[in-house]
């Protein structure tokens, strides 16, 4: 597999940005300054980045409540995201969406989504737009193992197949739907579910960027070439709780520590880059430093940014009313 230096560099940078963003939110959330709920994507970075490495601005994604990683992977500006999470007027949604609703339609980012299983039907529609407007785009639904049991998701697998849509269904299987294990909640297998709809199925280790990149390439090129939808099953682990503040009493001691020490996608990326002389360590170090500065600046700016005004309360309910 050949991956250009440019894609490798950008992908590492995106993964590192997600990691820094989320780790910083973990710290900042504990101070009580961030309102609402926050669901962190730490440990899952290679999935969003490995998939989005194959997507351009004319492609569409729909995300989940755990959406920061997908937003960054699709190119949403980090400072605008941070300001949004702090509920500031300078946020990408003017402080009216928050962590669970970050969207930028100009980048093909159809939104994080507070409703489990909310995205797959929307992605059928985005895929229909790509098909009828003939822009060669594909639409990708990210959803978790929890959402894989929603009727809306299963209906979408059917509709996308019936309509022969350029859609990819990416199941990010982190083993837990909130506090309930997927081994309990998911009957059968994702593979058999795809087969049940006559849909090609690909799977990969979601902590290995290169594995995700390769599997996503197959799934996305299948959809883009007009052969209909595909499913990509990404196995990964969630490093934090369902939401910040979750004590994770449903996981044995050491589970997360082991994941962090043995399956860190950034460590694995660096290892692979060094092993086959893809990128020099100094380049990656520079990225790490630059990302850290960017996140620092985003937090400082977000804390100083103006709050929404009273007039914002009733703005933008409708285009016109």
């Amino acid at each position, binding site marked *: 597999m050949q991956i250009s230096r440019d894609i490798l560099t950008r992908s590492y940078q995106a993964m590192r940005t997600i990691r820094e963003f989320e780790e910083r939110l973990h710290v900042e959330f504990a101070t009580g300054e961030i309102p609402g709920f926050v669901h962190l994507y730490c440990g899952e970075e290679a999935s969003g980045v490995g998939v989005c490495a194959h997507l351009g601005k004319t492609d*569409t994604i*729909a995300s989940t409540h755990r959406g920061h990683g997908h937003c960054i992977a699709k190119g949403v500006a980090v400072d605008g995201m941070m300001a949004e999470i702090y509920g500031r007027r300078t*946020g*990408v*949604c*003017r*402080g*009216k*969406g928050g962590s669970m*609703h970050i*969207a*930028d*339609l*100009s980048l093909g980012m*159809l*939104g994080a*989504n*507070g*409703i489990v299983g*909310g995205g*797959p*039907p*929307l*992605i*059928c*529609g*985005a895929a*229909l*737009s*790509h098909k*009828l*407007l003939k822009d060669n785009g594909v*639409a990708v639904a990210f959803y978790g193992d929890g959402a894989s049991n929603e*009727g*809306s998701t299963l*209906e*979408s697998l*059917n*509709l996308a197949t*019936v*309509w022969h849509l350029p859609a990819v269904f990416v199941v990010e299987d982190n083993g837990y739907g909130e506090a309930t294990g997927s081994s309990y909640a998911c009957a059968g297998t994702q593979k058999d579910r795809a087969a049940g709809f006559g849909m090609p199925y690909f799977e990969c280790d979601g902590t290995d960027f290169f594995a995700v990149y390769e599997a996503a390439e197959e799934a996305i090129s299948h959809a883009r070439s007009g052969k209909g939808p595909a499913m990509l099953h990404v196995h990964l682990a969630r490093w934090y709780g369902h939401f910040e503040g979750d004590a994770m009493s449903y996981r044995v001691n050491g589970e997360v520590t082991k994941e962090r020490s043995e399956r860190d996608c950034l460590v694995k990326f660096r290892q692979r880059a060094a092993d086959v002389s893809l990128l020099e360590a100094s380049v990656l170090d520079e990225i790490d430093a630059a990302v850290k500065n960017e996140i620092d600046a985003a937090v400082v700016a977000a804390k100083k940014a103006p709050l929404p005004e009273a007039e914002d309360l009733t*703005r*933008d*309910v*409708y*285009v*016109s*009313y």
Partner: protein
Amino acid sequence: MSKKSFRQAINEALRQEMRRDPRVIIMGEDVAGGRGGTSGVQDAWGGVLGVTKGLLTEFGEDRVLDTPISEASYIGAAAGAAATGLRPVAELMFVDFVGCCLDQIMNQAAKFRYMFGGKARTPLVIRAMYGAGFNAAAQHSQALYPLFTHIPGLKVVVPSSPYEAKGLLIQAIRDDDPVIFLENKVMYDEEEDVPDDPYTIPFGEANLTREGNDVTIVAFGRMVGFANQAADRLEKEGISCTVIDPRTTSPLDSGTILDCVADTGRLVIVDESSPRCNLATDVAALVAEEAFDALKAPIRRVVPPHTPVPFATILENLYLPSVEKIEAAVRSVAAYRVKEEV
């Protein structure tokens, strides 16, 4: 101008907008019908009541999309397509089926623009049949426009005649917000003169179908016709009524309602939806708050009982508002006099 049925008026609005704008597509269960059948692709049904008949033949399979019986997926797909460049008109068949896809309407389409800080446009129309009078029983007869009216981000249209239906549907399709367009299933064969050319009727501008001095009647959808009949009969008794057809429940033309109540001082509201938290309670609250001093009599609501819609004709007739019930309500408010304080 020619006589057209409610059904033909809607078909013509869809056809003319699909000719005007290639981004307009329709989707729904059996909007064409026949795909996968042994007769091959054809215009088999055109919707269960034939409203979309002929559109497949003119616009082809890409723009007239039959769906599986799978409301959550295709209503959500319509929302997603609307947010990404198409202008879908999705047919939900019976509005009661919203129970299978409310999330996609309530939590997705309705909220995109606000949640995303004004950056989304969702030019989506969802058409559905509503209303009792068809012996369709409890799961196929509801008048759920209050449910949609309650949700910020949605516009809700309840046309009262074929002329209104055509102009309001064209407006809905050209509108950049999600619109719920509700057609009373008993009215599809009603006819009146409807212009052949496309035209629009703006949202939030009520229509006065009768003008009088004594009592204001506000009625929605099919109830506008009932209210007109009641007003015509009452005129002969010497009670003159204004009848207001708000056309849209969201936005609601509260200004016209308040102006008319200021003139007549007496108000009857006719609403065939379930009586709690319906449009009648909404209008009553508006008037009680904004026009209390103008009122010369208590507000009367002509509404069904708080029950599911029954099946048997005798019960369904008892359930629905009727011309007679409206007449009785108007007579009572017209005769009402404030007791002199002792």
